[in-house]
């Protein structure tokens, strides 16, 4: 179990325990955290699980693959710290990770 904090664009935040091995996206869906749609179910085909990763954490995460970066172009208001939450896999090293969901996904 790893503690992940999901913040929305208005600053409301919720910290939950997510099983290691799940993605940040799955953690949100299973715990009914709003703000992540994940239309394609994690196939890196839709950019509706787009999140902003807190700066310090962003640099610690394994780098996004080219196909993820391409897909982020399709996201709503992408920024430098944008990631697709279906591609971030929870592990002990991510304990305390904070992500922020965008105002909307599409």
């Amino acid at each position: 179990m790893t503690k992940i904090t999901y913040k929305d664009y208005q600053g409301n935040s919720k910290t939950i325990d997510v099983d290691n091995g799940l993605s940040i996206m799955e953690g949100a869906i299973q715990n009914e955290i709003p703000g992540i749609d994940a239309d394609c179910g994690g196939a890196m085909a839709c950019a509706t699980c787009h999140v902003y990763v807190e700066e310090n954490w962003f640099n610690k995460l394994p780098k996004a693959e080219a196909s993820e970066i391409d897909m982020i172009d399709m996201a709503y208001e992408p920024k430098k710290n944008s990631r697709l939450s279906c591609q971030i896999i929870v592990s002990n090293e991510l304990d305390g990770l904070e992500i922020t969901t965008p105002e909307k996904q599409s």
Partner: protein
Amino acid sequence: MKKTDAIIIGAGPVGLFAVHQLGIKGLSAVVIDNLDKAGGQCIELYPDKPIYDIPAVPECTGEELTKRLLEQIKPFGTELFLNERVDEVNKEKENWIVKTNSNKEFMAPNIIIAGGVGSFEPRKISLKESEKFEGKSVFYAVKNKDNFKNKNIAIFGGGDSALDWALELSKFSKITLIHRRNEFRGAQHTLSEIRKLEKEGKVSIKTPCQIVSLESEKELKSITIKYDDGKTEKIPTDVILGFFGLIMKLGPIAEWGLNMDKKTIAVNPENFETNKKGIFAAGDICSYPGKLKLILSGFHEVALASVECFKRARPNEKYRFEFTTSSKTIQDRLGKK
């Protein structure tokens, strides 16, 4: 109004295979899709990406899969209505009447919704002000090139559509190509052409930046873009073309009175019927305990749904299960001698 045995909404792999499963049972169908071609997500999102989990096909791309399915349903001569979105579904006695956004009407005892995650629509510029210029000076597709002659055009996006149109429209207009990062992901040769035009002063490339505002009087005058370093720039602009890719919107499906679970439709896993008799859902859009969003699951789902469709379309006939290997009737329907 066109009458048929089943109306299939969605021309993705599952919708296309539904044609086959209905066809071998002697049932006619029409297919309606909002995209301009068959294939759904396979063709729109990953035409070149290999798929490895189609039984007996170790590897094929989304485009190949679509081509093969179209080949497989060719004998049935089923009509595909593309660029059409189903807006309304109404009941009339034992039949369903379907109306599209271009006012085409269809009638059938069965509807199979194989709509994936909904219909594809262009992702739009996130500025509120851009809405009122949509269709006038803000566009997300080029329908007629002539409308884009001798203009100051700002093209947004980093993929093939943005690059291709920048190249094409630069022949008779002044182009500014704007992308949120320095790398473009379009075809390399198109990009080198564009870089050449940039050197010649025919295309101007602005990266990494995003639009922050539009300036207008009656008509669009200019746009302001902001670079990553915070610097802003105003660019005289008559026309904005945005190519931010497509998003999937459930759209009108949510209003047909079906039992929905988030963006999916609840079905009975015995026949994939929804809470409305004669309306079925299959593929990514349906949900039932244990549902997997796999193409192969969708194939299974339409096979079962087609049996129930037969019972509704031919109430006076008995459904008899048959194999394609041994049934003369099926082989006739497939045009095999």
